[in-house]
């Protein structure tokens, strides 16, 4: 039973490597002798081709849509492109000159700070609010499914709609938020046009948009925790907080980890909300790497493709680092 499951597992694991599959299957010599011999005679070639055939669509897809664009972006960031050489080729290879220029740009430090603040603050609030709501919705009460569905609305709306709506609500002159503040005796705040409020404003909008994503993942994670554990904990006299702290929290950890990682990657590259609401401004006060990269490459009359690609690659590296941290944490947990 065990061996047959193992060998099947190995076969599934190495679709291209029939070489490793054959010894695994051949271990049970008395039964599989003829089959193994037949496979050795005609098999390897035929199955290998079939294996490559099955692999080809995925490989071609990955090469065309991931490897090649990444290579192009890297190439773009390592050459000194002018508008002429962009069109006609022949841009000189300049090594890391674009990266040096980007790092010494006065926008670099603020953009890095804003990227980190935007990502970490958004993530912390999205996760905390999402978890609180998920726990709340596990208690079945009337209208719970409808309310839960309503919470998905921010996620379903096209970003252009939600970002425009936020920009309109936070308008300093005619916005509904300042109108509300006026009623409780607080003077108007220049949400999108003051250098100190622009970043908090886009963070608030992004938290609102990200909560449903966290809610859905964490809610489904909560469903997977066996009910009898809570019953047992309740019988042992655990309070609600203790049940959350000792049962929910540790058992939800794998789901939390993947939620946070996905959230991190999504938030690092958030571009549309910021671009629609503030264009990264005023000046650079809400510029992140994502908006900066776009502005360099596409936002000016004169595109600076090289530096734009360099900033984009820095963003890729940041996401990769987060991915590696996740894999390490994952490995430590399963070990």
């Amino acid at each position: 039973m065990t061996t047959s499951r193992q060998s099947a597992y190995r076969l599934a694991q190495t679709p291209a490597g029939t070489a490793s599959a054959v010894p695994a299957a051949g271990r049970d010599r008395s039964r599989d002798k003829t089959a193994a011999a037949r496979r050795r005679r005609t098999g390897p070639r035929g199955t290998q081709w079939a294996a490559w055939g099955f692999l080809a669509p995925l490989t071609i897809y990955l090469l065309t849509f991931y490897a090649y664009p990444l290579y192009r972006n890297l190439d773009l960031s390592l050459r000194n492109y002018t508008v002429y050489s962009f069109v006609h080729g022949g841009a000189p290879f300049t090594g890391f000159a674009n990266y040096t220029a980007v790092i010494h740009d006065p926008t670099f430090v603020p953009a890095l700070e804003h990227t980190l603040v935007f990502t970490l603050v958004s993530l912390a609030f999205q996760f905390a609010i999402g978890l609180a709501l998920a726990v709340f919705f596990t208690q079945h009460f009337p209208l719970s499914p409808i309310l839960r569905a309503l919470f998905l609305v921010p996620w379903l709306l096209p970003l252009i709609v939600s970002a425009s709506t936020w920009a309109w609500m936070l308008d300093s002159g005619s916005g509904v938020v300042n109108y509300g503040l006026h009623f409780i005796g607080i003077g108007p705040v220049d949400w999108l046009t003051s250098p100190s409020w622009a970043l908090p404003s886009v963070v608030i909008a992004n938290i609102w948009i990200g909560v449903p994503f966290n809610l859905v993942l964490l809610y489904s994670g909560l469903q997977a925790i066996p009910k009898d554990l809570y019953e047992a904990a309740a019988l042992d006299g655990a309070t609600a907080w203790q049940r959350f702290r000792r049962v929910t929290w540790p058992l939800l950890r794998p789901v939390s980890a993947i939620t946070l990682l996905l959230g991190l990657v999504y938030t690092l590259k958030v571009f549309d909300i910021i671009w629609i609401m503030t264009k990264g401004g005023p000046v650079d006060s809400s510029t992140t790497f994502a908006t900066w990269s776009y502005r360099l490459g596409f936002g000016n009359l004169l595109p600076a493709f090289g530096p734009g690609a360099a900033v984009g690659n820095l963003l890729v590296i940041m996401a990769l680092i987060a991915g590696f941290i996740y894999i390490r944490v994952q490995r430590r947990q399963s070990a």
Partner: protein
Amino acid sequence: MLAAGATACSTSSSGSSGSGSSAAAGGKTFTIWDPYPQFDSSSAWTTLLNSCGSQAGVTIKRTSYDTTDLTSKVLLAAQQGVAPDVLILDNPVVSTLAEAGVLTDTTQNHLDTSAVQPNLLGAGEYQGKTYGVPIGANTLALYYNKNILKAAGVDPSTITDWSSLTAALAKVKAAGKTGITLSAIGTEEGSFQFEPWFWGSGANLTKLDSAQAAAALNLWTSWLKDGYAPNSVINDTQTTSWQEFAAGKTAFSENGTWQLSNAAKAGFPYGIIPIPAENGGAAPVPTGGEFVTLPQQSDTSRYTTTEKLVSCLTSADNAYNTDSTLSYIAASGAVQAKQVDATPALQVWVTAVHSGKARTGDDLGTNYPKISQQLWTAVQSALSGSASPSAALSSAQSAAASATSGK
């Protein structure tokens, strides 16, 4: 308001496209790219394109992009060898694309530019060659709401310089209305709107940190500080700033020729005065408007048909129709006269276009985009209060100097 905002954003963020296929099947397809996403496939503009296409015996495939997207889209297309046959392009970018080797000049494409006003044609010239024909021109002036000025006791004819304008804004504010809307957004639009004041003070784009430049930026900053202009101008495009004016609670709007047809629909009587210079007289205004250009093609036999298309688009009769559709002033004197005959109110705009100044003029050429970026950054940083006007301009000047010295 919400719907209007969402529509405005959606038109500016992505290109819509309309295509016509009225010509006989089997004919060749010619591509035209333009920066007019506001015109759908049933608009007069598309109809004109299609009729020019059928006259030349070809099918027209039209794609429109937002102005800011168009440059990079064209550069990418040219790199892949799929540039459109006809490209309608914002005038300050013509020299950049000419430098990129994307456009044909008049020695290759045989366009006739003799009828075009020289100060308008200037933006299409690069290193002694001409790269296109202006389809029309537009510029900026001050629209005013007659009702509000009357209620505030302001006589628009007394507004001749900055101090009389500021005094008028103060009266309007005292009457409980907003003084002026403008666009100080962090894009080319922001520079375009600031340039009349910048040039009106006597400043020059080659020296952003002059005392005159600081005076112009001080004027705008003080308007915001005193509440004459709403703080939202920092994020307003010319379209959103117009919407605020059209809501009827603002006395003045710095806006362009292209709003004329909307002004008629605003529901209140309006007037137009030229933007005043610091010490009186009309300020030099930047000329806006697009050029019709012919990108390089590997198949040079296409040029013959493309020339027919372009001469059709820019011929006197069609130019008149096109410029009426776009609400632009024509580029040639003869068509301008015809426009004024039909609509005498256009005279103020024709005068403004005659005294208009090309942004890429003063030998700036391809340096203009780099300087302009620093200019709008300085405006944003002064208006949002992150730097004083003179500090913002001096850092803009050093950034512009290092950006332009790289060539």
